[in-house]
Structures are given as structure tokens and as C-alpha cells.
């Protein structure tokens, strides 16, 4: 938990020497508490105080990074229980589980396919984060060959699922040059696992039946010098998952309970009785960190990737749509042209209404910095000048043969100015609400 200004003050020299640039030690302590100053600005602080302050300022949930030959996944370092309190920072990594007992050529084929998978969501490219390779054969040579095969077709980060230190070592050798996660240390093998993880400088997952077991193991591992840990609470269904992941998140954030201050790894498809997609969805909403899927299915993965994008959107920075000209229902040069802003909800409600109405249409989405129509207008981000500029940038004159632009009813006031900015154009004032677009077009569009 972060220290208060007064707690920090007690650890400072209290000489008011001003060497830090602040008038008093208390003023400096207050700035430190507000994270507006750095401890290194005080040249006189004792080593003991430094250690105390640094450990108190360490994040309550450790950040863990996996790296592939290209690309990385960071999980952890979350600071809130609910996204509206601030935001969730590090999107859970979605991995696909493979086994080294699979035929090598088949393995390459399916990995290449999953590696190439990507979907566009409002201009954001979404994809699978990496692969978890399991040493199911217990044969180091086979495991090595499987990892090499995966790396020959994908540069994404890896998770190595291994029961023993020897297999972990074999995996690490085959993954040399990347930074995989080793899964997992348990009550029996933790010493050998710690040795491999420490030597390779890679993160290590920890597996135990209950939270007490996890906490004991992480403390032992920390003593061996392995700092980047991931918790596997062994969840198998919806309720045990919600209870354990909520408990871990609360303990870490509300009590700064360091032994469980790590991101979590889950296997929503491990229990064949469970609907993997729906449990993975729960993990995305409620405190999952790394999510390893048993099945790679494009349709379900698309839904999960979009949910992750939505839940991890910063509530203060709404999702924006790429500004541009959007086609709805295959419009031709006679189809109506409507202008709006690039706030995603604004875009979606209009695009959905036009699409549902069956009207072919062109949607001019202007760069209003992700604000809705009225907010953008009030902030000067959706004015005649901008609309005219974007109309030019996105070449509306090349798309439609008519010269009529429909603007949202809420900004009717812009029409005069816009006619000046866009000579030769007729500016039509559309409805205030998207739901009225269909009836508006029926009444007003004569082409």
C-alpha cells in the first residue's frame, strides 16, 4: 500500500536542508506521496529508509513479461477492483495450448494458421497472444522438437508446460533467445524449477491447491531470488474461479498481501464439463491474467478478443473509430451521405441504424477525438471547418455525384457556416437521434 506523506516524512532526515529543491522535508514528503517528486532528489536519505520506501512503492501486483522472438505480453500491475475506479491496464494474454505428442508437421500447420489469425475491430488489430506448449510426452527430445517447430512458424511468446526441472531445462534451451513462462512449480518440484527459472531469467508459474499453498510457495521462491511469478490457483469452474480470483485480487490490492501479489494464469478448458468460451469470458471480466485455451476456434476467439478490448478500455478514453468514409449496404454515387463523429458508440448507433434500415449510405466519420456529437461540438472538435476538411481528406466528392451532406440534428446551427466552407453543397439537417434516420431518409431523400 502506498505510504502517506506523514509516513514518508518519518523516514526522511527531517533537517529541512532544501537540497531537494523543496522548502521543507515535509513538503518533499507530500510531493513524494503524490508521486510528483523522486526519492533520489534527496541526497541525504539513509539506505534503510531507501529500502523501506522502495518496497512500499512497489506495485501491489507484480508486472510479468513474456517475450517471443517478436512481440511481448505484459500482465499484472493492476491497481483497481472495478474498471470504473480508474482502468484495467494490462489485457489478459490469450494463449492456445498445444502438446508435443502431436505430429510435428501437423503442429506446424495449425500453429501457422493460428499465428496468422487476426481480426480488425474498429481499426484495432486483434490476435492470439501466443502458444502454450506442453511436454506431454515427458521426452526432452520430443519437447525440444515441438518447441522448435512452433518457433519455426511463429514469433509469438510461449508458455512451457512442464512437470520437472529437466523438462523445463530442455524447453528453455529450445526457446533460447525468447522469454517464456515456465509452468509450473509445485510443492514437490519448486527447487529445481526455481533453479532453471533463475538461471534463464524467465518468469515462473506456481501451482497449489489453495491460496495458502500458493502463498507459501511464492515466499519460498522469492527467497531463491525468483521475483517474477504467476499464480495458478487450479480453478476448474465458474464459481471457484470467481471466488479465488476475487480473493487474490482483493488480498493484493486491499491488504498489499505480497505473497499473492502476482498475476494469475487460468485454463478455462481444462475441465471438459465447462463451456470454455464462457469461463474464459468470466476470466476476462473478473481478474484473469494469462488465459490458456484448449480450443482454437476463430468465432469464439473473436468474441473473447472483443470482450477483452471492451473491458480493458480506459473509461476516460473511449474507443475511437478511425476517421474516414465508411460504406454501408454497398452504396453507389447516389446514396445519401451522413456526417458524424468518431466516438465509437456514436458511430455504432448510426451505422447500425443505417444498416438495419436497408438504405445504402456513406458515413463520413470525422476526427472529433473520440467525442460524441454534442460534446465534440461544445469542445470545438466538430465544427464546420473540421467537417469540411475531413470531407476533402476522405474525398467525398469522388464517392457521390450529388452534393448533399446530412449533418446531425443536434448541430443544426453549423449548417450556414458549413455551406460557406463547402461551396456548391447543400447542407441538410438530419434527425437528432440515430433511431429516426430511417424515417428521415424516407421523408427527405429523393435521389
Amino acid at each position: 500500500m502506498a505510504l502517506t506523506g506523514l509516513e514518508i516524512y518519518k523516514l526522511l532526515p527531517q533537517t529541512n536542508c532544501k537540497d531537494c529543491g523543496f522548502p521543507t522535508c515535509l513538503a518533499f514528503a507530500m510531493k513524494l506521496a503524490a508521486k510528483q517528486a523522486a526519492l533520489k532528489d534527496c541526497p541525504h536519505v539513509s539506505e534503510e529508509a531507501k529500502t523501506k520506501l522502495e518496497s512500499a512503492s512497489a506495485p501491489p501486483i507484480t508486472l510479468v513479461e513474456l517475450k517471443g522472438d517478436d512481440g511481448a505480453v505484459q500482465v499484472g500491475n493492476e491497481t483497481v477492483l472495478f474498471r470504473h475506479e480508474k482502468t484495467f491496464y494490462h489485457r489478459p494474454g490469450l494463449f492456445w495450448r498445444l502438446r508435443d505428442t502431436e505430429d510435428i508437421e501437423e503442429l506446424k500447420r495449425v500453429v501457422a494458421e493460428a499465428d496468422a489469425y487476426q481480426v480488425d475491430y474498429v481499426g484495432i488489430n486483434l490476435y492470439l497472444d501466443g502458444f502454450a506448449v506442453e511436454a506431454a510426452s515427458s521426452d526432452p527430445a520430443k519437447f525440444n522438437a515441438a518447441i522448435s517447430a512452433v518457433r519455426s512458424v511463429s514469433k509469438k511468446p510461449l508458455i512451457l508446460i512442464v512437470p520437472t526441472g529437466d523438462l523445463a531445462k530442455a524447453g528453455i534451451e529450445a526457446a533460447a533467445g525468447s522469454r517464456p513462462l515456465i509452468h509450473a512449480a509445485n510443492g514437490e518440484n519448486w527447487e529445481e524449477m526455481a533453479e532453471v527459472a533463475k538461471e534463464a531469467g524467465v518468469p515462473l508459474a506456481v501451482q497449489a491447491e489453495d491460496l495458502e499453498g500458493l502463498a507459501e510457495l511464492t515466499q519460498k521462491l522469492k527467497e531463491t531470488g525468483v521475483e517474477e511469478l504467476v499464480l495458478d490457483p487450479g480453478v476448474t469452474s465458474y464459481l471457484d474461479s470467481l471466488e479465488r480470483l476475487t480473493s487474490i485480487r482483493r488480498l493484493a490490492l486491499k491488504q498489499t498481501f505480497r505473497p499473492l501479489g502476482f498475476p494469475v494464469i487460468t485454463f478455462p478448458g481444462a475441465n471438459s464439463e465447462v463451456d470454455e468460451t464462457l469461463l474464459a469470458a468470466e476470466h476476462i471480466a473478473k481478474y484473469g491474467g494469462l488465459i490458456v485455451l484448449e480450443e482454437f476456434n476463430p468465432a469464439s476467439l473473436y468474441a473473447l478478443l472483443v470482450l477483452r478490448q471492451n473491458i480493458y478500455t480506459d473509461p476516460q478514453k473511449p474507443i475511437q473509430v478511425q476517421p474516414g468514409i465508411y460504406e454501408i449496404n454497398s452504396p453507389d454515387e447516389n446514396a445519401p451521405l451522413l456526417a458524424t463523429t468518431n466516438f465509437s458508440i456514436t458511430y455504432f448507433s448510426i451505422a447500425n441504424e443505417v444498416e438495419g434500415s436497408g438504405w445504402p449510405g456513406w458515413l463520413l466519420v470525422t476526427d472529433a477525438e473520440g467525442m460524441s456529437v454534442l460534446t465534440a461540438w461544445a469542445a470545438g472538435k466538430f465544427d464546420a471547418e473540421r467537417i469540411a476538411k475531413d470531407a476533402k481528406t476522405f474525398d467525398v466528392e469522388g464517392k457521390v455525384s450529388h452534393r448533399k451532406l446530412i449533418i446531425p440534428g443536434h448541430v443544426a446551427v453549423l449548417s450556414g457556416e458549413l455551406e460557406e466552407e463547402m461551396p456548391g453543397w447543400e447542407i441538410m439537417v438530419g434527425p437528432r437521434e440515430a433511431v429516426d434516420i430511417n424515417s428521415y431518409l424516407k421523408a427527405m431523400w429523393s435521389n
Partner: protein
Amino acid sequence: MTIEIPKEKYSGAVREVTLGATADEGGTRAHTLTVGGESTLPYLHFEGTIPNRPALALEIRDRKPDDWSPLLLQAWGEAMDDPGEWAKAAEAAGADLIYMVLSLTSADGEPNTPENARAAVRKVLEATSLPLAVVGPGQADLDNELIVPVAEEANGERLLLGICEEKNYRTIVAAALAHNHLVQSKTPMDVNLSKQLVILIHDMGMPLERIVMDPTTGALGYGIEYGYSVMERLRLAALGGDKMTQQPMLVNPGEEAWRVKEAKVGEGVPENWGDWERRALDWEAVTAIALVHSGANMLILRHPETLRRVRTVLDDLLGSQS
């Protein structure tokens, strides 16, 4: 080492609301349906009680809709041609509640009529003994014109009637008051607006035990994060003791999800969107599950398979109480 799970102490709880009336209570339903009552966040049994399961409703219409996805037409088949048959099929599919939306127009494009609305509700009441919700097509004038006779036709059945919105709630609330029904209070994704409309409806004399609030949620990919967070904030406020936010929450993942391209359309979409049917069903189910975790007490669904999947998840989340 023993670890104590940090528990929250809440001063408030969600209000219990009961739909439907049995013969003893002046209706004809086989049983009533109670939602709400929980004194903790969704499914955290370790710090509070959750006396009632969330209700799963299936949406039906008074006539076969013109714009539903072919996947839904396939799922319901000929049952859609008759509201009574459709209600029976929904009951057989495991619904706790039938949610009937009255159409804007008749099949030949004429505005829907009070006579038709009455007849459809009568048919459904006779076809099923489940509690029932009836809402208008979503256009203020027509909503009022249709819901008032429905309230009268089903006098004493404790239907859930809607949709009450800030701009149009008085007529529907008055009809519900006169004929012993409940109302659905719907506001656009905003904590204060939700609260305010509950206050306005309550001020007309409607007991809080007869108001369900619909905070509005987007579909997955189409703004669900706004609805999700508004619901979490409303629920935290309710548990914190803010009386006018303690109504059970109704959400409509069926309507939201089946409106979007991902569910509706099978052709001309990117290959990586995968199998259409699976995508459509996942879109509805994942939308529903996200809302289950943000505090939904009633979920309106469209596809029977989604109801089955969500039911399985809820059975587990409710643990020994199921």
C-alpha cells in the same frame, strides 16, 4: 499460514421484486417469480446472501418478426407464427419468464392495434402458466395505446409492463397501478438517470417492490463496457444503501447481440470471424455472461441454446443454492 479473504460489509441490499400472480393472488399463473434480494456483489457467497436466482427470459413477439436473423427463425421454426405456440416453445426451452414485445406494425404494414395486442396477450396467458412481461414496440404514442388495454386485459396478473422511459412513463405506470402490474424503467447507460426515473415512477405511487430497472447495455463490441460499468456502479450504490438504486436490474443481451452484424450476417464478412452460427451464439452468450458478472437479475435472451448455456453457468455460480 492461514489467509483471511477480505470481506466487504455492506449496509444495503437489492430489493426483492415478485412477478406473476397465482390464483390465490388474483391471477392465473402456476407460480410467481422473485428476483433480487442479494446483499453482496454477484455470486460472492462468502460475504452475503443471494436468496434468488437471476431470471432467464426468452423474447417472443405477437407475430413473426420481419427482421430477425435466419438462425433464430431456424431455432423457433413454425412456433413463431403464433404467439401462443411460441410461448409454449419458450417454456419448453426452459424460460423462467416470457418476455413479449408487441410489434410496431401488422404483417401488412399497418400500425399494430389495441385489439391485436389484447388478443395476443390473452393467447399467451392461456398457452403458458409462466409469469409474463409485455412491452410496446418502443414508440411512445403506440406504446401507450397498446399497453393500456394489455394492462386491463391481464388485470391482476402482475405482468411486467414497459417500456417506461424518461419521456414516456406516466401512462404505462398509471395503467400498471390500476391493474396491479409491475413496470420496467429504462434509461440510457447512466447511473443518475437510472436513479432519477425510479424516483419519478415511485412518486406516482408505484411501490418500489414493483419496479425493475433496465440500465441499457450495448452488445459485445458495441459499447458493452459502458453498460457493464454503469451496472457495477449501480450495484455498489445499492449495497452501499442508496435506496433508489436497489431495484433488480433487467438487461437485454438477446436484442443487443442479435442486432449487430456479427450475429445477424453470415455472408460477406471476414473469414476470421469464423463459423456464423457459433459466432452468433457466442455473441449473445458472451454478452449475457459479462452482464451476469456486472449484476443482472433478469436477462432477456433470444436463442434457446443461449438460455441453456447461461443456465449451466448460473447453476454453478449459485452453488449449493441451485
